[in-house]
């Protein structure tokens, strides 16, 4: 069951946060596919999730 709507900061799409969403959860934008981190549930807020960097080494 959707409880809140947030806007994707990358493409502006409206996303539904499911009931049970938790702070720190990483979701994907259904339109552009970018990873988003739920920064806050109340009020609902998402930001771009930390990017994956690539390192040469262990």
């Amino acid at each position, binding site marked *: 069951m959707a409880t809140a709507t947030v806007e994707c900061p990358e493409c502006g799409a409206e996303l539904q946060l499911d009931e049970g969403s938790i*702070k720190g959860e990483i979701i994907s934008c259904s339109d552009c596919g970018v990873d988003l981190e739920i920064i806050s549930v109340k009020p609902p807020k998402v930001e771009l999730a930390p990017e994956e960097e690539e390192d040469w080494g262990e």
Partner: protein
Amino acid sequence: MDFSDQVQLLQGLLEQYSPSREESGAVAYLVAAMAALGFEAQRDEAGNAVGVLGSGPDTIMLLGHIDTVPGFIPPQIIDGKLYGRGAVDAKGPLATFVAAAAETGPLPGARIVVVGAVEEEAATSKGARHIAATWPRPTWCIIGEPSGWDRITLGYKGRVLVHYTFSRSMSHTAGQERAAAETAVDFWNQVRHYATHYNQDRPGMFDQLDPSLRQIQTSSDGFEEKVEMVIGLRLPTELTVASVEADLDHMAGPARVTFSSEEPAFKAEKNNSLVRAFLGAVRAVGGTPRFTVKSGTADMNIIGPHWGGPIVAYGPGDSTLDHTPQEHLELAEYRKAIEVLAQVLRSL
């Protein structure tokens, strides 16, 4: 433990030179250090240092490695940097585990297990394999490798070593027969082409197949000439070890190929309570969390697929200093990593 004790813990560990298969002095040191901090500590059957703090239904496994590559670097602090073999890879992360667990103390409902595993650098990964075989799956697992204090490592590429051997009867070099060495070079070029073809439309390092020519040598007894070659392959998550080996076996034709040091690539999920704990902890210590994936391999390649649960690799240090004569750890970063990890342990 105050910070000087935490630095002494690491410096003492660096003084115990411990290249792979010569870890016993370092293991004895770490077992004694953990026991003094209240852990139930012992050396296990594989030679690993194992310390358990607290008890409960959940287990937080902190699995570092205590061996290093060869080449002793006298431990010393210069301008806030602690130099020493293993300062980054990976005694710094291992000491961070012990210091953070000691800082939090026993947790309600969970036991913290710190392992200093042997033979990670030897490619046998004897210590990690023993832990995987003898311990039940923990609730959360953190592998001790340098990520930087504000970064979380999610994955490591896989690896396979290809041992190529081809022999043929001697012929005059002025003749039309191709020399054994030329046949080996042809194979190497085929492998490079195979990788280049696979890597088309895959711009990211982690998604690519990377071949490297490690060794090539020829020999002759006057009747037969022989060429031996070793090729290293770094594998992406989309390729299995078996599929790559089958392709190379087919390419090799009459030559003999065998394989060793086989590890599949592994990439952890990032939507779980462990990753969330790290994101929050890095922010709480004043950083902006980042994720990373690595071109190398680590014990995570063994433990991750085996246990399956939430897992990351974490530890202070700049991994570009791994295995270098300049290996050192910024003490300020060591402190921050201890703070981050202690915060993670409290929030799980």
